[in-house]
């Protein structure tokens, strides 16, 4: 069942069965280029894609909790129609910080920079990404960008929302807008460099025999994402630069008082930010394809449809930005064209949902934590996608535009989709990244808690939006209170759900069961090497002969049986050894009687 030939296969001594797993002596975490791997220098100047992925993991996690703090203040404040804890000014800064941090510093980099960075070279059978130094540079750009952004938002505050609509952001808002923009600008370059690195790596560094249609769908999804990052992010850079120029030099680009056009800024902003929505969901789709195949023990149904759906999403997502502007002075006929294309972009997503579901058919399904997250993903993503129809339809957008309906819709995609998929991927690959298993029962508890908390938080917001509650309102009409309180209650469950994995994953670093190279019996190349992997991933470059998802439930049963026997044998031997140790004592007590 291996995808690699005997020449490339690691010898059996190195890959013990699950019953007797031990950590490899040398791996990427404890040694770096043959030297001691625990020094600051070995981490901060590392060129190893896996170490850089860990650096990203730590940084995006910190950003997630900062963004989450903003969300917490927002939700608590909405307990009362008059604003429960903070002034409108602070509230505005909090939702702006929540948006900026979550979008630019968490959702965009989270899966590509952590899981993509770690696993794309491994899935390709490569030693590293094409440009290791550029990879490290992109992390530094990200960190500097994040630090600048945080400084601006925490020290002074920005209250424009993450969308920076003009002329509010250029003529009427606080000075920290410029500094925040610098932060986002830098993070944008980090994103471009990561995308560039992936594209070249995927083109040039595939192992012998690894043709395009033998690539895991995770790699296809990341290829699509990288195209978006490289082509769309520069437009964000231009937009932000123009915004800064208008703020600083008072040159009329967007401000009508200076002869500019405020709607132009929205066109430019969404020309990046709509494709960015797909930057924020395509990687999640890639994770789901991997995990569903592994836990259903069969190939993803309709591999080519899923692969091309990723590319189709990347292409069409460039043509729908105008659906954010149906209510501006955009021509109604232009709006209709954007509306039509927005309906069309729903189709590739629908294909993926159907194909994942069909993958379960005749599978041999285990509901471990990653799979629970993935099934949650499919359900929530479907709801998020279907409510996108309401907003793609010009007719209903007339009513739902800029209400809580929109908030609920994109949180179903971004949180219900991307964050769920990220947690699925993190649990799935945790044994590979750290060499240890997370506690399964805690994992399942957290997955179920998150699913419940998520729905309780965001489903009431669909109704709130339909009832007419506009977004970004710290003070609201009293009839909206009941649903807001429900939503806040859900958010507190959600917060607990996020803290749990944080705690038990940390705990498992020292105390988790040792995983062995392939605890899920998955087929990807990344599993054909010890956990944690050595610095250069593979001892010998693997040679690929077959497709990515050659699962075989019957072979699994055989392997399970062999595992059970092995474990029983080990236990028997251990018991016998213990008995042998205690044998003299027993004789003594016997003679004493």
């Amino acid at each position, binding site marked *: 069942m291996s995808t690699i030939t005997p020449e490339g296969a690691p010898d059996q001594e190195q890959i013990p069965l699950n019953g007797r797993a031990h950590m490899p002596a040398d791996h990427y975490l404890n040694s770096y280029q043959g030297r001691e791997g625990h020094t600051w220098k070995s981490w901060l100047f590392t060129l190893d894609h896996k170490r850089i992925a860990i650096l990203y993991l730590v940084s995006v996690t910190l950003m997630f909790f900062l963004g989450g703090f903003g969300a917490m203040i927002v939700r608590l404040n909405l307990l009362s129609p008059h604003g429960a804890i903070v002034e*409108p*000014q602070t509230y*505005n800064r909090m939702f702006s910080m929540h948006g900026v941090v979550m979008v630019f510093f968490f959702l965009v980099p989270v899966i590509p920079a952590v899981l993509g960075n770690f696993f794309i070279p491994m899935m390709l059978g490569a030693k590293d990404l094409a440009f290791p130094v550029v990879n490290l540079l992109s992390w530094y750009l990200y960190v500097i960008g994040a630090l600048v952004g945080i400084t601006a938002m925490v020290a002074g505050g920005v*209250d424009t*929302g993450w*969308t920076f609509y003009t*002329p*509010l952001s250029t003529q*009427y*808002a606080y000075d920290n807008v410029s500094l925040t923009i610098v932060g986002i600008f830098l993070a944008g370059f980090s994103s471009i460099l990561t995308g560039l690195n992936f594209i070249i790596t995927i083109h040039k560094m595939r192992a012998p025999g690894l043709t395009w249609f033998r690539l895991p769908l995770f790699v296809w999804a990341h290829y699509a994402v990288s195209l978006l990052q490289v082509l769309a992010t520069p437009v964000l850079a231009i937009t932000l630069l123009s915004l800064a120029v208008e703020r600083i030099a008072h040159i009329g680009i967007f401000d*009508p*008082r200076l002869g500019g056009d*405020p*709607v132009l800024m929205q066109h430019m902003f969404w020309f990046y930010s709509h494709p960015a929505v797909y930057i924020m969901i395509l990687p999640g789709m890639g994770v789901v394809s991997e995990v569903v195949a592994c836990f259903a023990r069969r190939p993803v*149904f*309709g*591999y080519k*449809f899923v692969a091309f759906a990723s590319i189709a999403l990347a292409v069409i997502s460039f043509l729908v930005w105008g659906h954010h502007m149906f*209510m*501006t*002075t955009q021509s109604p006929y232009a709006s*209709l064209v954007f*509306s039509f294309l927005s*309906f*069309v972009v*729903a*189709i590739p997503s629908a*294909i993926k949902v*159907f*194909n994942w*579901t069909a993958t*379960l*058919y*005749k*599978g*041999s*399904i285990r*509901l471990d934590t990653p799979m629970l997250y993935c099934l949650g993903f*499919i*359900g929530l993503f*479907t*709801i998020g996608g*279907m409510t996108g*129809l309401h907003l793609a339809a*010009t*007719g*209903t957008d*007339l*009513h*739902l*535009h800029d209400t809580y309906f929109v908030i609920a819709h994109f949180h179903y995609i971004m949180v219900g989709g991307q964050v769920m998929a990220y947690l699925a991927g993190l649990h799935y690959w945790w044994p590979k990244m750290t060499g240890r298993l997370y506690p399964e029962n805690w994992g399942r508890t957290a997955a179920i808690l998150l699913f419940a908390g998520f729905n309780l938080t965001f489903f009431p917001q669909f*109704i709130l939006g*339909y*009832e007419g509650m*506009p977004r*970004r309102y710290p*003070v609201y*009409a009293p*009839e909206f209170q009941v649903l807001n309180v429900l939503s806040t209650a859900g958010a507190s469950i959600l917060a607990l759900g996020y803290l749990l994995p944080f705690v038990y994953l940390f705990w498992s670093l020292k105390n988790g069961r040792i995983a062995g190279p392939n605890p899920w019996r998955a087929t990807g190349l990344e599993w054909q090497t010890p956990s944690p992997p050595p610095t250069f991933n593979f001892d010998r470059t693997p040679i690929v002969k077959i497709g990515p998802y050659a699962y075989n*439930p019957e072979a699994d049963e055989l392997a399970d049986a062999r595992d059970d026997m092995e474990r029983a044998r080990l236990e028997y031997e251990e018991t016998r050894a213990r008995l042998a140790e205690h044998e003299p004592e027993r004789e003594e007590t016997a003679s004493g009687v």
Partner: protein
Amino acid sequence: MDSGVPFIPPVASREAGPIELLFWVINLVAIVFSIGIVIVIVYLAVKYRRGNRADRSNPPEYNIPIELAWTGIPLLIAIGLFFWSAFVFLYVRRTPAGAAEIYIVGKQWMWKIQHPEGRWEMNELHLPVGKPALLTLTSEDVIHDFFVPAFRIHQDVIPGEYSYISVTPTRVGTYHLFCAQFCGTLHSTMTGTVTVMEPADFQKWLSTGQTAGTMAEVGKSLFIQHGCDGCHGAHTSVRAPKLEGIYGRPVPVQIPRAGVPLDRIQATTVLADDRYVHDSIVLPEKEIAAGYRPIMPTFKNRLTEAEIMELTAYIKSLSNQPAPDNGVPQQPLSPEEYRTRTGFLPNNMKDLSTGTADGTTTTNTTPPPAGASGVGTNQGRTR
């Protein structure tokens, strides 16, 4: 303020009906698909769970007809919904004939609403039931959004531009008015009420309260107070075009381009509508009445958007009149007179003192005014 059904906002306009119907149709599609997917997932996850006996022989790796079907059918449904939604959208966007005009200005953080009859109100909008209204909206500062959930309509309110939305209230009552586009610190307090009244009550309401006259009358006094009549007066067409009869008709203009002298630019025509009048007042260098020198000063910080709407109403009221003797001076104002009347002298009027009073021969050697930067010197053209 409710519809009697929990969680459903009142339906109080002609436009709300089709929007509401479309909303529930899309809901139905969404619910059928979402629940369908969930049921299938749960069914498969239970039936094929590991250890459960089930037929797992020959799992299909792909099935092109089925995949084409679940690509094609959703696409057809999506296209169907698109056309339905497009009809609803165009129906709402079409203004019914005979709609009463109402002028709305958004400003951090309040709504000013003017009725052409002269009554104006803050954060409140009164409308007669059953009568279509055409709302003309603009903003004094940032982008706002006019949102009345009971009418099911949003319209962005954009500075420097007019946007329009029409609505026909169908139910007497009081409804929420919200600003839906984040507009700064007190965004969430930029709310108000819409009161829909019986037509007779509305007429009574309209005639009470203090007014300074109709919008056109107020516009006329602004026209004089700000010295517009100095150049645009009924009998003076030396320095500036007459405004009688232009509204709603095409007017010849020259659109300046950087680095090209104005007299080399071909004239074109634009429609003299609200936008044209507004831009001519605020950004006069954008389109220059063909054959005239670009001497119109900008009034962008001297007039509020509401005042510009009143001036527009006045110019509109002139559209069907032959030039009347309305008491404005027969000769253009001299810079001195202009200064006495308005308290300021526009930069681009200063050079007039170097030319002759009627402006026939001016060798304009001074650089063009700041607003018209890039426009070459324009040798005193006359008509």
